[in-house]
């Protein structure tokens, strides 16, 4: 299976990847960064749960409209069946007895007769954790892990063979079979009934997702892609805290066979600004509020200094380590858990956090006293540290540099503080000092990050390399997109970093290293064009070209191989989906502006 063969399901606290072949190859319980129960995504012996026809079949799949409920249709010579995959979700009002987590898989035979085979091999933490398996005629198959319990139940008989479960069964048109896999650790397990009750849980989950999707106030172009992206982001948000993880996987390689395989099951503060914009603009005020509350609560622990990465509860992520004897995706080793980038100095985060907070403040019209104090402390920190070299947005593990993007975001941090003060949302700011520092940052960028010969902004102060992140200068309002400098920078970036239709490398260094195209950069380029750096048609064409690389159900990764168009890197990637939404919003805004006055009114 390749990365694009996977679809994501989840319940707002954990997520699973299901392949086109009907195999659940990745599932971490009880939360995103827990060790996997099924890890076949990264190792053939990592455990999986497959439900597939015995005979060869053609496969099509889709998400049920406006939901994260997956339908995979297998068409064999003798018959057709649909495999419905979901993690059940319930409304706040519905607080009845429910398991801590449940993956529900329902097979419905639509035509003829089919024979199916089930293989169920849980291998917690790639077999490092040992379970005790047992079978009970009424309570189902049970795998105990300490006091934690995994239970598998179905209407068809399943045989336990050691730690592995198997079944082979026939279905005729009109018949349905359910498989409920649950996890409990809080108390006595809840064993939800099958049959009609399982169908009711599916309908309830569909309703829950549709209600959430219907709250999106977006009627612009590419609505399908925007809503799918919003649903994907919702799958990566941790409901109890409001945190949003970067991706639900670890160690999917940015380049096949490479060693740059990282654990993305954590929350990067860097994604804050675009995420807040996406959620707020789509009308998800509650989600944006929860996200910003998590952001501010989390950062209080280290204030005024920020770590780069936090776990879903705002703690430090687990220490990075390599898992020996795990094969890796397509042999890409090592497989890592934890992320060592958390202690890097990345000054751009201050701009991201302050910008996200200011967006929410503009939306709700207020800032509480604690948050004001926090912003003042962040502002003071930026004033005192913006001249330092850092690791910046791409988190290289080499020496720190004076990065243009980090300088830009320091400028954004101070600019937003001044703006909040001007609007009366932030008090007790020494505006003159902040304005002086902001002007100094601008002068520094203009003097040292602009290459007058190539007529482009560059990656680091005084360097010759290009970097697509400088395209964000127009998004953050540092320069109008239509300015000579930004237009010229865009041209140089496309000329040098362009990787085929709709694809852009993130920096020249990546190009030299043979990395794929960094998908998010395509949407930054769309933003630049939509904001006035080019024509609307040009922006639209670029957007559509970039969207074409998503898989058949609209999910996107971090990187695209420009030659094979294979998806690479952790999957799906929240930041790429956030980028898509933001770019679509900018396109819609530009389209409104270009309408004749009468049409707009």
């Amino acid at each position, binding site marked *: 299976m390749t990365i694009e063969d996977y679809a994501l399901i989840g319940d707002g606290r954990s997520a699973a990847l299901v392949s086109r072949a009907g195999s659940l190859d990745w599932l971490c319980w009880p939360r995103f960064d827990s060790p996997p129960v099924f890890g076949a995504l990264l190792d053939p012996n990592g455990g999986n749960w497959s439900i597939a026809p015995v005979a060869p079949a053609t496969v099509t799949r889709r998400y049920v409209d406006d939901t994260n409920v997956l339908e995979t249709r297998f068409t064999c010579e003798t018959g057709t069946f649909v495999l419905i995959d979901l993690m059940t979700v319930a409304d706040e009002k519905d607080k009845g007895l429910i398991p801590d987590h449940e993956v529900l898989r329902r097979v419905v035979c639509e035509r003829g007769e089919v024979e199916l085979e089930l293989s169920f091999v849980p291998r917690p933490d790639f077999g490092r954790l040992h379970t005790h398996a047992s079978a009970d005629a009424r309570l189902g198959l049970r795998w105990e892990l300490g006091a934690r319990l995994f239970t598998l139940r179905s209407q068809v008989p399943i045989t336990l063979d050691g730690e592995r479960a198997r079944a082979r069964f026939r279905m005729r048109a009109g018949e349905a079979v359910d498989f409920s896999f649950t996890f409990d650790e809080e108390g006595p397990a809840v064993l939800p*009934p099958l049959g009609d009750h399982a169908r009711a849980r599916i309908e309830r989950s569909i309703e829950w997702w549709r209600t959430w999707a219907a709250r999106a106030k977006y009627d612009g172009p590419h609505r399908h892609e925007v809503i799918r992206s919003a649903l994907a982001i919702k799958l990566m948000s941790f409901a109890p805290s409001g945190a949003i993880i970067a991706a639900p996987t670890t160690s999917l390689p940015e380049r096949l066979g490479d060693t740059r395989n990282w654990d993305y099951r954590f929350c990067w503060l860097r994604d804050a600004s675009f995420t807040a914009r996406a959620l707020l603009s789509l009308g998800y005020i509650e989600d944006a509020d929860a996200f910003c509350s998590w952001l501010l609560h989390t950062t209080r622990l280290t204030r005024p200094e920020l770590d780069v990465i936090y776990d879903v509860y705002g703690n430090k992520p687990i220490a990075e380590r390599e898992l020996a004897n795990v094969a890796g995706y397509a042999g890409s080793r090592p497989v890592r858990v934890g992320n060592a980038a958390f202690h890097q100095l990345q000054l751009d985060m201050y701009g991201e956090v302050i910008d996200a907070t200011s967006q929410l403040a503009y939306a709700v019209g207020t800032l509480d006293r604690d948050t004001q104090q926090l912003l003042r402390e962040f502002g003071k920190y930026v004033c005192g540290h913006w001249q330092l070299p850092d690791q910046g947005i791409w988190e290289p593990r080499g020496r720190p540099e004076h990065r243009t993007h980090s300088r830009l975001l320091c400028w954004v941090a101070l600019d937003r503080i001044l703006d909040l003060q001007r609007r009366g949302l932030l008090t007790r700011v020494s505006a003159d000092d902040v304005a002086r520092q902001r002007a100094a940052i601008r002068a520094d960028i203009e003097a040292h990050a602009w290459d007058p010969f190539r007529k482009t902004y560059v990656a680091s102060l005084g360097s010759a390399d290009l970097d697509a992140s400088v395209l964000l200068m127009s998004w953050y309002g540092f320069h109008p997109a239509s300015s000579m400098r930004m237009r010229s920078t865009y041209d140089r970036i496309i000329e040098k970093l362009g990787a085929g239709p709709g694809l852009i490398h993130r920096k020249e260094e990546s190009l030299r290293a043979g990395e794929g195209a960094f998908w998010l950069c395509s949407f930054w380029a769309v933003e630049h064009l939509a904001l006035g750096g080019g024509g609307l048609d040009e922006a639209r064409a670029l957007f559509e070209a970039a969207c074409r690389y998503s898989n058949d159900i609209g999910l996107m990764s971090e990187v695209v191989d420009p030659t094979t168009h294979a998806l690479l890197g952790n999957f799906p990637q929240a930041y790429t989906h956030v980028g898509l939404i933001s770019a679509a919003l900018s396109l819609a805004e530009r389209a409104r502006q270009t309408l004749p006055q009468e049409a707009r009114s």
Partner: protein
Amino acid sequence: MNWASWLVWGFAGTVFLTTLMVTGQGFGITRMNIPYMLGTMFSANRDRAKALGVLLHVINGWIFSLVYVAAFHVWGGPTWWKGALIGCVHAAFVLTAGMVSLPGLHPRMAGTTQGPTVVRQLEPPGFLALNYGRNTPIAIVIAHVAFGMILGGFYRPL
């Protein structure tokens, strides 16, 4: 009978027993959650069941501690080791007769003979409550012995 002493130390013993059991859950030793099990007898609402269960558990603790106090009175007065012994007997009763008969008493607990239904979805504890983790009997014995030791050690007859 010293009613004030019974009230205070019956409550303290119950709180300590509950703390030990919750700590056991936190460390992955057992899924036995007595307040949750008691609460779900009266409410299917998970949150309400937990809150109600804590209240019921405290009341239960007082009732059971009355039996302990009565035993101390007929057994020549309270000592910590007598409390521990009674706690052992109490735990043995809970783990055997109590757990096996629970599905019959609990309206939302599945039976081992008929399995879960729409109403009865809660996993039954089974013999020695082993369904809730293989170390559950140890956790229950330790918690009840501690409960008995607190009562035996601190309860003072008039």
